[in-house]
């Protein structure tokens, strides 16, 4: 069971990474990141069967932090939308070189 859980979380993580690599919408990108975080959470939870509660504590912490991050992230995305009227990342390249 543990191995399967870990495998699943690895797959989820990879899906998240691939999503980040392929998608161009800032929101969707951010969602993919969240998917990665949650994959990690899954790992922690799965491991708690082996090592006890530490992993679960970690998960709580991660979730909290992810929430804070989401708040900040969405604010930033809104801010960029105000300036550029788009959240398509290929159009957002004022800064380069």
């Amino acid at each position, binding site marked *: 069971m543990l191995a399967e859980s870990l495998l699943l979380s690895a797959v989820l993580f990879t899906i998240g990474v691939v999503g980040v690599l392929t998608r161009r919408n800032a929101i969707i990108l951010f969602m993919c990141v969240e998917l*990665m975080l949650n994959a*990690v959470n899954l790992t922690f939870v799965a491991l708690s069967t*082996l090592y006890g509660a530490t992993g679960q504590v970690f998960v709580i912490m*991660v979730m909290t932090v992810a929430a804070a*991050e989401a708040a900040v992230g969405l604010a930033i995305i809104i*801010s960029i939308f105000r300036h550029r009227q788009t959240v398509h990342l290929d159009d957002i390249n004022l*800064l380069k*070189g």
Partner: protein
Amino acid sequence: MTYDLAVPSQLLAALLPDLTLMGGAILLLLAAAWRPESDTHQRLIGRGAMALVVLTMGSVIATALRGATVTDGPIAMDGFRWTMDLVILLGALGTIAISTEQHARDGIKHPESHVLVLFAASGMMILAAARDLMVIFLGIEIMSVAVYVLAGLNRRSARAAEGALKYFLLGAFATGFLLYGMALIYGATGETRLQEIVTALIRHSLALDPMFLIGMGLLLIGLAFKVAAVPFHMWAPDVYDGAPAPIAGFMAASVKAAAFATFLRIWYETFYSVYGLWANAVAWVAIITMVVGNVVALSQTNIKRMLAYSSIVHSGYLLVAVTAGTAVASGAVAFYLMAYTLATLGAFAVVGAMQPVGETDAPIASYEGLWTVRPWLAVGMAIYLLAFLGFPVFGGMGFFAKWYLLSAAIASPGRLVLISVIVVLTSVISAGYYLSIIRAMFMKPRAADAPEIPAAGPLTRTVLVVAAVLIVALGILPGQITPLTARSGFAPHPVDPTLLSIPAQP
């Protein structure tokens, strides 16, 4: 005395400086929200924040002087922590000092910006202390979230917003790697505390466990992102470019210092026991970072981007110290970061002072003939740049920082001579771009239609002068602080010969 971290009151005592800063920051946040946004209010909160930072510094020094130690636990109390705290707080202090005036000029009236700096600084301090993956994660996130916001502080600037977005998206992405790495290490060893991890490693001979190895690799990736090592550096130039100059300075100085603090902590306390597993990888990252950073910096025309690449390069140098992995090397890191923080603060203060109101673009061409109109800015900038370059006397501490680093590298058991040679050779490349600014400032005439440069405010001037004087003075008499940095060095966990033997160096 020794604090027992299992006892809550003693844990709080061990975290006193951090708690001082955090608590004070929360109070200041309330104060900031108390009144409507205005320039005076922003300045007032700025003063308060500076006072709080000074207070925290005092508490750090007081705690350090007590010479307290702790039992094994989630946080450390040692010279390294205090030194890094001071470096971080120094960066924060300077940043706040500059930004009160810069913000006034740029029309940024958010008093909470200073509070965000404080929050970020508190996260950094936690990083300097943390010896537990969980605490480390917490510290990183406290720091990062605050800095994401700071990067986009200038809400009227599309560039700032873009920088913030990039930083945020990539930062979160990298955090995913970091976190997954932590999870895998936890999975492999069943521990999150650094000392316990190493104990488990040795007890169960887990060194070659793929889960552990991949976890270590992912951790490396996450931290390399935070210190902006190549190829995880791509965010840095854009973010520095978009952020207000003082904030860019804060990112270049304090964020990097904190990231290196935890990098070093993790590596020294845990992974040094399996030195041979990662040494090549870190060395290669260091080399690539030095080369790419320097070479790409050569082609920059915007000073902020150039300084961003310069900060990437310095990460490369510092990674050499990580690779060296000795007590001398950790002392060298402390010294280096001290010098680097001073120079970075100064350089970004100049960049801010030079930046026309409301613009974030800072072309090097606008520095032409600076000497003829603002000689002190030019002289100061020259000192900071030469410090980056590691030039003796004129670059003051910068030279001895590099010196310290090279000594550490060469004296390390691995005798990192080749990598030292790469350090100095890439330094020569860096002379190319540092000198191009000095050249612009001193050797080219001021264009007739060049905009007037407003006089820098008193706080900025203070930062400029203090940074320059400290750099030069401590560069001529580094003996004044070498005892401190020597004490702040801590020895890595010895290489465990049972785990594996040290392979040949790259």
